[in-house]
């Protein structure tokens, strides 16, 4: 199973900035979340299914301050790797590598590893990545989060 890397451009909002005039560290987590939604869209997966993804771990390296302007969020599925992910296998965890750049050709500002698990929303019990993919492929198209401008 192969998944494409996604790229999402976001405009920094005035209220994203802290007293130093750069993006607040916690706001960067929102950029990363938007990047993961864009990744789902890129794969043709939709939200609204009975199995949902939840974040279980976040590791963030802040490498450079983010000033007002555009940022580009790159998101790729790092684990399971293509050869570890099979339709009839079982995986209960996925890890994304995400990078936030200052503009399309700009320098790296943030790098993060984000682990997610999957929950059956009704039973509130753990589900597998394969169950999530089945549900996200079958789910009706829900309202899609528009990139901010």
């Amino acid at each position: 199973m192969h998944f494409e890397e996604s790229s999402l451009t976001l405009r920094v909002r005035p209220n994203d900035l802290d007293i130093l005039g750069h993006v607040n560290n916690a706001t960067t987590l929102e950029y990363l979340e938007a990047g993961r939604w864009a990744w789902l869209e890129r794969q043709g997966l939709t939200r609204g299914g009975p199995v949902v993804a939840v974040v279980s771990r976040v590791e963030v390296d802040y490498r450079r301050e983010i000033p007002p302007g555009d940022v580009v969020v790159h998101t790729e599925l790092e684990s399971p790797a293509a050869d570890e992910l099979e339709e009839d296998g079982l995986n209960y965890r996925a890890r994304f590598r995400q990078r936030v750049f200052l503009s399309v050709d700009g320098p790296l500002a943030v790098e993060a590893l984000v682990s997610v698990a999957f929950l059956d929303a009704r039973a509130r019990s753990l589900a597998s990545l394969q169950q999530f993919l089945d549900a996200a492929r079958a789910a009706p198209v829900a309202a899609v989060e528009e990139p901010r401008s």
Partner: protein
Amino acid sequence: MPDAQELESYIRRKFAENVGLTEAELFSEDLTLSTLITRSERMTNSVDLMEAFARTSNGLRKDFGLRVRLPALSLDTPVSKVLAVFMGEVTNPERKSA
């Protein structure tokens, strides 16, 4: 096809490898899943635990063509019960096609 004893030995070994404890640590005290998470340096939460069981399940499928479904397991479940669930799945003739 391996017999039941060989399969149980395989599952015990894979459990231990995937959770990062020895077979003796894991089974001699019949640890509950919550205790297992506490003792294992590789485990933080039940997601890590299910991933470890999933790796065992994937190994059974690849090595022996046996499919194991994992039920929802509460954290007070002893590891012997998990082993019994796996053995029930792999020794059920209707579940053997992967």
